[in-house]
């Protein structure tokens, strides 16, 4: 583990509780708003950080979100791990570094998918009646892509500007000899 990777890991481990706790308390208690904030930053680390740090960000961030939101175990962590797996499966076709445009488009697509996943997972775990509050309605399905796009673009830009280099490393193939 390099020095920058160590500090990046420490940053992810310490910053996530502050981010999730603050967003869960201060932001409105509505799924379209909550999804567009802390989860987006978790996704950024899951996709951009190295393989092992990405898994740690997915599990730790997912666990914190599940605790803050009160959703059943695995509702968030498994979703982030699936994103991690999808990004790894792309291999050479994955982006070299994720940009705000990736966040915007990805947020627009993934926010409603995440909401549906939360509902389905809660229904499997708690039963359909108890999970009914999570069922996305028509207004929610219109708002979710919009807030997901807004949050994805803004937070990817912010994370790209603020994070350690180790949290969005360049691909190994691009690092050739200078000469």
């Amino acid at each position, binding site marked *: 583990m390099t020095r920058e990777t160590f500090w990046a890991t420490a940053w992810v481990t310490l910053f996530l*509780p*502050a981010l*999730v*706790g*603050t*967003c*869960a*308390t*201060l*932001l409105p*208690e*509505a*799924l379209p708003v*909550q999804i567009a904030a802390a989860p987006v930053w978790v996704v950024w680390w899951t996709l951009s950080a190295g*393989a*092992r740090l990405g*898994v740690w960000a*997915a*599990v730790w961030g*997912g*666990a*914190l*979100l*599940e*605790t*803050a*939101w*009160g*959703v059943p*175990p*695995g509702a968030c*962590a*498994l979703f982030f*791990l699936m994103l*991690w*797996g999808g990004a*790894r499966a792309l291999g050479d076709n994955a982006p070299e570094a994720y940009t705000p445009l990736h966040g915007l488009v990805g947020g627009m697509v993934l926010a409603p998918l995440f909401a549906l996943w939360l509902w389905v997972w809660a229904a499997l775990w708690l039963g359909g*009646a*108890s999970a*009914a*509050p*999570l069922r996305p309605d028509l207004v929610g399905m219109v708002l979710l892509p919009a807030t997901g796009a807004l949050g994805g673009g803004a937070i990817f830009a912010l994370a790209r500007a603020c994070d350690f280099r180790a949290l969005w490393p360049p691909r190994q193939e691009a690092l050739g000899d200078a000469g």
Partner: protein
Amino acid sequence: MRRPFLWLLPIVAALLYLLWNGAVRQVCAEAMWPFRRLSGWAGGQVSGRLVAAWRGLCDGPSRLDAATETERLRTLLAESERLAAENAALREALGWMRGEEAGAPGVRLLAAPVISHGGGLGVWPRLTLGVGSLRGVRTGDVVVAPEGVVGRVAEGVTPHTCEVILLSDPTCRVAAEIPGIAKGIVQGDAGEDAGATPEDSLLYEARPLVLRFVDKAAGLPLRRRVVTEGSGGVFPPGLTIGATVARRQDATGLLAEALIAPAVDPTALRVVFIRLRGRGDDA
């Protein structure tokens, strides 16, 4: 060899995470606790000042110096009104708490701030409180408010936080009675509208409760207070649950049920009280 190992990593992580989820949740609750308390306090301070400042901005124009001074005074006045109302509410709660402790020797009431209602999404029948095992809170402790019973402490108490299972949670069942008239079990309705008619549902501020397994011959009266009966071993007798608003037969037609408007609206709670069990406690 590294590729197969890499794919094993998330699978092993997911399995371990689901296996030890209870402990993981406690760690997460403790990790987030200071930030949730701080952001809750900061949010309250900022929102109060923003409202007061907005009031000042909405007033009509006047001479610059006088206008500035007037706005400053109005801001201070709004802030002092907010503090006075908060002070009065806390004094009332403190007076009620002392009365309860005096009437029930061996029981101590611990004031607990509410960190979140229903989780960050606001949809679950649970509260998160900012006190935990360090203050003597244990699983199963009864949580009350001046208006009535709120619920009981769930499993997974951390040193600084705990969760409360509300009466409206379908997994929470309470032995209850309408004093001198009928006895039954109060249970939440899982958030679905339990009103027999649309007019009934309009009466409910919070999720309605259902008093089940009542003898049909008892003749359920309406607008009568429902209290805990005490035979379940968790909730002491005499705590207010709510009032009956409607009655019906159950699905079998053999027993009666009553719909109860809860005495406590959990969404409006800012401070609750935990009955800490001690010597001579009836729970």
